[in-house]
């Protein structure tokens, strides 16, 4: 007579394989079939990772020490550092580099180009004077209003060409003395020397004072506030 009720004894016998579906009837037989399904021999797909897993196990056994201490292998599947941690470390490194570069820039120890770039950036950010421009170059070399002075000197009708050249050189370099201009036809056409003193923009002799004035105004545009005519 097949058992059709699930009492505690039947449950226990079912679990311990003392009862099979054949011994049972009704729904209990279905339950026994379900329990039996869990005990089936291994399917081939259940062992498909055998090679890889056993190889990894062999390495793990080898690398564990014999004195009872276990050496933990690095997890091969993923990076040990999480993505969030990697991002944080990266940001910290960038912030550190930036702080170091800013410190060097404030102290004026960066290479000329970098120092100039930092000084310009600081000025644009409204931090004028915080980072000095490098010596011998950049906007910081010329004091404020130098463009206006150059413009005034160039348009001054009371001085001759060679005097204008000396004056402009003095303004731009801060030196009191300039070499004596060479004696010759060009010395009388002061505009040529004035142009030479301003970077040799014009080598043509015979330029008029107004051309020198334009040149001076141009310099004022490049190096300082616009000149007021």
């Amino acid at each position, binding site marked *: 007579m097949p058992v059709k009720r699930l009492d505690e004894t039947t*449950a226990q016998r079912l*679990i311990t394989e003392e009862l099979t*579906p054949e011994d049972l009837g009704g*729904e209990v037989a*279905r339950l026994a079939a379900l329990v039996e399904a869990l005990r089936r021999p291994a399917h081939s797909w259940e062992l498909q*990772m055998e090679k890889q*897993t056993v190889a990894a196990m062999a390495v*793990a056994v080898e690398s564990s020490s014999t004195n009872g201490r276990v050496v933990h292998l690095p997890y091969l599947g993923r990076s040990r550092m999480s993505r969030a941690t990697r991002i944080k470390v990266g940001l910290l490194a960038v912030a550190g580099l930036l702080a170091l570069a800013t410190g060097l820039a404030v102290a004026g120890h960066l290479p000329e180009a970098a120092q100039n770039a930092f000084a310009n950036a600081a000025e644009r950010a409204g931090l004028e004077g915080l980072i000095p421009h490098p010596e011998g170059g950049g906007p910081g070399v010329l004091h404020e209003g130098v463009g206006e002075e150059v413009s005034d000197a160039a348009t001054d009708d009371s001085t001759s060409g060679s005097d204008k050249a000396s004056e402009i050189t003095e303004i731009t370099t801060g030196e009191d003395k300039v070499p004596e201009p060479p004696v010759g036809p060009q010395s009388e056409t002061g505009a040529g020397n004035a142009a030479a003193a301003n970077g040799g923009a014009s080598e043509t002799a015979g330029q008029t004072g107004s051309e020198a004035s334009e040149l001076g105004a141009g310099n004022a545009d490049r190096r300082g506030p616009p000149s007021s005519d």
Partner: protein
Amino acid sequence: VLEAARDGAEWALVRLYRTFHPKLLRYLQAREPMEAEDLASEVWLEAARGLRRFEGDESAFQGWIFVIARRRLIDFRRRADRRRSQPVPVESFSSLKDSSEPESEAIEIVSTEAALEMIGRLPPDQADVLLLRIITGLDVAEVARILGKRPGTVRVLQHRALKRLLKEVSDEA
């Protein structure tokens, strides 16, 4: 076998794997179907790392790897911070027949996958007890030790699990 496995003998590791992996995989499959393979691999690696420290026979070894498996499962769930709240829709019991097996009129043959799926729908405690008792064949005391429960609690959980399964089987039918 265990002695050779401790020395890293590949044949011994293969033997252990073939003996216990299907059981381990079935247990994990019922509890966490999508992650069962990965979790099983982690269990084996952890077992291999601790193999030299392990003392006991093969039955104890089986209990040990299921302790590791359960710990891994708990860690995984804690990490994922989620529980299976949307069970797979119940298929009709008759559709869960294993087509590779000869069909019997009196007893319906159920596929292992279908059985695992049904047990996976039980409350976790009940599923653990039933899976460990049926798949590993461990006795109540051993299962109680693995789960950190009293033997009496394990017996009660086991009975409740079977009754619940029976009800589900009846409903399906």
